[in-house]
C-alpha cells in the first residue's frame, strides 16, 4: 500500500508517494537523499537517526513517515547557517574533538540541540544522562560531554 506524505524538512515543503511501512528515516535518506541522518541499529537504541520533529528530538527509525504528516522536521543538514557557518553546538563539537568517525555525530548534535534548549548550563552528570539514547563507539563520550557543555553555554537556551 502506498501513501502520500507531506511535511516540511529543513524549512522546505516536501512530499512523496511511499509505501505505508516506510520509516521516517528511510523517507529522509532514500526519498529526500538527505544522508546525514544515519541508521546504526534496528532497535531504536543507537540514536544515529535522531532528528527534530516539531522542535523535539526523536529517533526517526521509530516512527513511520506517515506519522510525520504535516510536521516540521529538522535534520543535521539544516542546522548550520545558510552561508555554511557552523551552529554553535556544531562548532563546540569541532573545538572539543567531540567526534571521530562521524557516524553517530549527527544524532549526537540533534539530541544535544534539543537538550540544550532547556539546559543552557548543564552539569556533566546532566549531559551524561541526556545521552542515554545515543551510542558512540569511538570517543568514549569524554569529549562529547565537553562539547555539549560548551555548546549549551554558547547557545544560551536558544537553537
Amino acid at each position, binding site marked *: 500500500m502506498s501513501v502520500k506524505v507531506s511535511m516540511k524538512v529543513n524549512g522546505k515543503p516536501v512530499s512523496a508517494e511511499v509505501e505505508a511501512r516506510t520509516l521516517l528515516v528511510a523517507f529522509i535518506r532514500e526519498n529526500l537523499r538527505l544522508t*546525514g541522518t544515519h541508521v546504526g541499529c534496528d532497535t531504536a537504541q543507537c540514536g*544515529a537517526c535522531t532528528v527534530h520533529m516539531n522542535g523535539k528530538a526523536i529517533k526517526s527509525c521509530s516512527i513511520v513517515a506517515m506519522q510525520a504528516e504535516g510536521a516540521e522536521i529538522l535534520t543535521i543538514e539544516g542546522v548550520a547557517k545558510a552561508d555554511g557557518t557552523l551552529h554553535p553546538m556544531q562548532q563546540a563539537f569541532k573545538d572539543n574533538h567531540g567526534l571521530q568517525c562521524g557516524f553517530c555525530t549527527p544524532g549526537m548534535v540533534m539530541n544535544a540541540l534539543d537538550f540544550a534548549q532547556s539546559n543552557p548550563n548543564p552539569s556533566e552528570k546532566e549531559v551524561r544522562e541526556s545521552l542515554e539514547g545515543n551510542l558512540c563507539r569511538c570517543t568514549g563520550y569524554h569529549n562529547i560531554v565537553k562539547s555539549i557543555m560548551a555548546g549549551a553555554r554558547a547557545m544560551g537556551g536558544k537553537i
Partner: protein
Amino acid sequence: MNAPLIGARIARKEDYRFLTGAGQYTDDVSLPNQAYAAFVRSPHAHANIKSIKTDKAKASPGVIGIFTGTDLANAKVGGLPCGWLITDVHGQPMKEPPHPCLAQGKVRHVGDQVAVVVATTLNQARDAAEKVEVDYEVLPAVADPGKARTKGAPVLHDSAPDNTCYVWALGDKAKVDEAFAKAAHVTKLDFINNRLIPNAIEPRAAIGSYSRADDAYTLYVASQNPHVERLLMTAFVLGLPEHKVRVVAPDVGGGFGSKIYLYAEDVVVTWASKQLNRPVKWTSDRSEAFLSDAHGRDHVTTAELALDKDGKFLGMRVRTTANLGAYLSTFASCIPTILYATLLAGQYTTPVIYCEVTAVFTNTTPVDAYRGAGRPEATYVVERLVETAARELKIGPAELRRRNFIRQFPYQTPVALQYDTGNYEATLDAALTLGEVSGFAARREESRKRGKLRGIGYAAYIEACGIAPSAVAGSLGARAGLFEAGEIRVHPTGSVTVFTGSHSHGQGHETTFAQVVADRLGLPIENVDIVHGDTSKILFGMGTYGSRSLAVGGTAIVKALDKIIAKGKKIAAHLLEASEADIEYDRGEFKVAGTDRKKMFGEIAFAAYVPHNYPHDKLEPGLNENAFYDPSNFTFPAGTYVCEVEVDRETGQVTIDRFTAVDDFGKVINPMIVEGQVHGGLTQGIGQALTEGCRYDATGQLVTGSLMDYCLPRAGDVPSYRVDTRETPCTHNPLGVKGCGEAGAIGAPAAVMNAITDALGVKDLPMPATAHAVWRTLQKQAA
C-alpha cells in the same frame, strides 16, 4: 615560516563534513539503477541443507535474481582465504577448512549465508528473502570453546575431525617447568577472556558495480583496507585481474578491526553485479551485524606466574583455548598466537615464558581481531597475575611491578619480540601522581562511611604495534606484506595532495598526516590535503589496523617527503647558482648555507612545473614522489592505567570513580586526537570489563543478538578520564611515533577487574562484572 605543527592541538580538517551531514559513508552512496541485496541466513547453528526452494521468492515482486552456493560453485567463485598460516607444535600446517561465500550443503553458525536475493527495492528484496524455503536437517552444535574438543562433540568440518585448527606453542617449556619447580610462590588464575561483538556504529555495507563497457568492477565497501580487500577478492576468490577492480572505502563509521576482513557479502554483491548487469547494494542491519561481523576475544585460559621470595618473576606458564568460530576469518589464526603469546613478557624481565594455544572451531560467528587483537588478552593474563601475586605476597602492586620492570633497552624478551625502547617507571610514576593514589586510603574510608566498597587496580600494559617487518611476518606465516605506501603530489603553486595507503575511519589522518607534511614543507595546513580509501587513486596500501597508521603509513609519507626535499635542493641549487651540497633545508626554506640567499618551497614547486630556468640536463620536471616503507621492527607503546571503583553493596553496581591513563606513545603529533583515541579505547576496555559479554546458548543461538541484549557502554557508564603521556621516541622510525589506537582497550580490562577484585576482596571474578554478577558475589560472601 609557520608555527610548528608537530605537537599542536589542531582541530580536525574532516570535522566540517561530518558535523553538517556531508560525510559519505557506503550506504550514502547511491548508484544509478542500483538493486538491493538481502541475504538468507541460517537460523540454526549447525545443519545440513537438504534443499533450497526459490520459486516463491522468484515470483515475489521486484525480484531480479536469487543465487545460492550452487550458483557460486558453478561459477567457480572460491571460498574466503585466511591471511596467516600457523604451523602447529608438530610442524604441520593449521587446518583450513573451506569458507564458502554462500553455504555449500551445510551451515555452521546462526547467520551463515545461505542465499542472496536481489530486487529492485530493499523492501522487495527482504520480502522475497522471507520466501526462500530452506529445508534444514538440524545437527547438534557446540558453541563453548571449552567443549569443542570433548569426545563426541559435534564436528564442524570433515578436515578437522577434532574441531581443532591448531595446537601451537611458544617458549621453552622445560625451562619454564624448571623455574616453577624452584619458585617460592606460584600465582595461578583460571579465567575467560569474554567474547565481544565489535559494533562499530556504522554497519557494514557494500555496493558492487560492473561496467560491461570497461569489463571492470567497482566495489564501494565499509573497509579499513581497500587494497587488501581487492587483493584477497581478486586473486583468491573471484580470479579477476586486479586492474579491473576498483575498491573504494569512503567515509567509514568506525572499524575496531571488524572491517579489516574480506566478507562473503562483499564478494557476492561484486559477483552478482556482473550477473545482473546492474549495481547491487547491501547494507547490514544491526541484527545481521551481530550475526555476521567477526567477533573478538573468547579465550579460556589457565595462567601461572612463578616468583622468588622477593617477588622477582621467574617464569610464566599459560594455556589458552581460543575460539575461532565456525570458519577462519581473514586474520583469525594470528590473533591468539603471534599477537598474543609474544606479548606475555609485558613490561617485565620474566626470563622464561611458555604459552600453548589450542585454537578450535565452534558453531559460532567467526572470531578475529577486535581493537587490541591478542594484546588485550595477553595484558589481561599478565596484569591480573601480577596484581594477584602482589596481593598474595603482600607487596604493593606498584612496588612489585617496579621490582620486575625492564630497564635496559633494547630488550630481547623470551617470547620473540625485541623492545627497542621504553621507560615504564616514568608512566607508572606519572599515573600514581595524576591518579592521586596517595589519597586512595582516605577515599576508601570515605566510601566505607557511605556504605560503599572502594577498590584500586593497576594495569601496566605493553603492546606491539605496526606489525613488521614483512620478512619476519612472512617467516611466521603471514601471507601478506606489512609495509605501507605514500605519495606526495606537489602542485605547481605549492599546495600538496598526499595519497596514503592507510585508511582513516575515525582516527583523524586527514589532520595528523597533514600536520606532518605541512610542518616539513613549511606550509599552512590548509594547503595540504590527504586522500585515502580508493584503489584507483592510491598506489597501494595495507590499510589501518594494529595502530600502524602513523608509524608505518606516516613514515612512508615522510620517506616520500625526503625525496621531494632532495629534488627541491637540486632545483634550488640551480636557481640560486650554488652547489647542491651548500643548500640547507628547513621547513619550507632552501637556503645557501652561510648566506641570506634562499628560495621558498612554493618557488621550487613553481620552477618544477614551469621549468623555464631549470636543470633539464640533470632533472625531470615536476614534483611528485612516492615511497614504500617496511619497518624494521614493531613499535612498543606502553603505559600504566590506574582505576578506582566504588561498589554498591545493595545492588552490586560498579561505578568507575576515576580512571587515570598515562601512555608512552613516543612522539605525539596531535595530542587532542591522541587523547580522543585513548578515551575511546578505554571505554571499549571498560565495556569488556563491565557491560559487554556475548552469549550463546547450548544450541548455538546467539542470545545477545541486539543492542537490547548486548550492552555497549553509554555515557553514564563511564567517567571523564585523566589522561597524560610520556614520550620515549621510537628508535626506528623518523617520526619517533609508536601508535595509540588500541592502548585503552588493551590496558583497561585488567585495571578495572583488578580494582573490582580489590574492592570485593576476591581473587577473581569473570568479565563482564555486571551489577548482577557482583551482587551474587557479595551474596556468596555474606553467606
